[in-house]
């Protein structure tokens, strides 16, 4: 829209000043606080939605299929080889001390407490957080989210809560499968590489595990599920800039959820060790 000559003269007389460093930092801080606030509100709402109607059971089942069954091949495949590579890496050290039978202990503890939930969380974040962000982002830029609101549906209930609930249910299950198949991988590597009997491996692997170890792994997988699903939804529903923005949101969803999973893992491990000492 062309300016009037009067307005053009005003603009020439008072050219816009570039923002100062303080203003730039202040704006960036405000934007970050707003993002954290927006994410927190959406994350809490995704859970409170589950307490009241309407609930979208069919959508939740569909997401469980996509997130759970869809992620199964990559989780099982990587779980098997992680278990195997752990045996290969630790077995040689145990051989130096003549304690090869401890391989089952170390693989079992590492998988259940740490590697199972974390690797599964990161794999599912890579596959599903990105998928959620791109799907919701594409819906947003094509006005499907607005259309949903215009038709009287709350997108938070219809789109966010089913995805969060489905991930909360499926990630612990995937982690369980991952740990089991990891132990199978470890056993195979032990038998062929260390000449350790399968029975010894399994006996040691199961005997070392305590209830607190299982709880630690389970708690982590639940927290990671919440992180990756809510981050994926938040990034998808806050896309700016059309299809290019969808690509950016997809990348951000994987990066942010992966980093948050690793950070949360550290604190959860510390908390679990603290509680194990106390109880």
């Amino acid at each position, binding site marked *: *829209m062309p300016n009037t000559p009067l307005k053009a003269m005003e603009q020439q007389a008072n050219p816009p000043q570039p923002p100062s460093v303080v203003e730039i930092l202040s704006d960036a801080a405000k934007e970050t606080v707003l993002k954290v606030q927006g994410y927190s509100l959406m994350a809490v709402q995704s859970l409170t939605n589950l307490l009241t109607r*309407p609930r979208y059971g069919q959508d939740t089942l569909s997401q469980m299929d996509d997130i759970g069954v869809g992620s199964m091949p990559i989780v099982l495949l990587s779980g098997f080889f992680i278990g195997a590579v752990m045996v290969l890496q630790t077995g040689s050290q145990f051989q130096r001390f003549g304690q090869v039978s401890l391989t089952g202990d170390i693989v079992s503890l590492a998988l259940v407490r740490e590697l199972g939930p974390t690797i599964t969380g990161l794999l599912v974040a890579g596959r599903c957080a990105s998928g959620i962000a791109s799907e919701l982002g594409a819906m947003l830029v*094509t*006005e*499907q989210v*607005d*259309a949903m*609101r215009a*038709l*009287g549906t709350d997108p938070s209930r219809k789109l966010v809560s089913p995805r969060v609930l489905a991930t909360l249910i499926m990630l612990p299950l995937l982690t369980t499968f991952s740990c089991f198949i990891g132990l199978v991988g470890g056993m195979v590597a032990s038998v062929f590489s260390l000449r350790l009997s399968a029975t010894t491996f399994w006996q040691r692997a199961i005997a070392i595990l305590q209830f607190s170890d299982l709880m630690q792994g389970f708690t982590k997988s639940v927290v990671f599920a919440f992180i990756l699903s809510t981050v994926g939804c938040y990034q998808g529903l806050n896309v700016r800039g059309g299809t290019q923005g969808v690509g950016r949101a997809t990348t951000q969803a994987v990066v942010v959820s992966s980093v948050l999973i690793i950070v949360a893992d550290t604190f959860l491990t510390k908390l679990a060790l603290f509680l194990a000492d106390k109880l």
Partner: protein
Amino acid sequence: MGLAANRSIRAVRSEEAAIVFSDVWLSFAGGPILRGLSFSVQPGETLVLLGETGTGKTLALKLAAGLLSPDSGRVRALGQDVTSKSERELLEFRRQVGFVFQEGALFDSLTVGENVAYRLQEDGVPAEQIEPRVQEVLRFVELQHTVDQLPSELSGGMRRRVSIARALIAHPPIVLYDSPTAGLDPITSQTIITLILRLRDVYGVTSLLATHRLQDGFGLANFHFDPQTRTVRRGAPAEKSKENEITTRFLVLREGQIYFEGNPEELLDSQDPYLRRFLI
């Protein structure tokens, strides 16, 4: 320009209006987009929001549906204050308003039938009641054969018609059209305008139509749909009395403000250079 003279009509009739905007302001990061927008739409009336791209036409429609909240000012629709409602209340309110999005905004993972049935399914209407209603509205837009197709299998014009069917299924008293003919060829555009005419003249729907195509507005102003003969005819319906006559008014937006408000004749007669650019 015939601007101020026509405002009196609005002021007198705004009490019983279907949609009322009162001094609505809306800004984004780039600055104010809508600057004190005030207008009203009477029940059964068609208001054509005309303006260049970026003048805030779509925003006005989204404000009317409660999809956006103004920075200041009031929006009333169907006797309810849209601006004071919570999101939960707005979800309920929006069930009474049909919205036809510019590109259709159909749910791309659902079939045409599922898209059209969406609102009824959300309302928990039994499946045996949904199917005949879906067939009815798809017949209305002459797309009953596409019920099992996905939106990606349809042409742009067909997607708009499905979008109209989706907005129509709950028989809303108000339908908001966001550039329903944008990017379509003249023949398909005419089909869409005919549908809007039918919706208005058969169901008495109040319409707010945003467009940058003047011919859309004149199509609505100069023609009517005769349900007896099922044909589109020039002029107003013969059986309508003067008071009940379906009116079509134009409202031209420029830089987020009302530049012109009046009937088609006043717009055609205007000698204002900016308005004349639309008439060329």
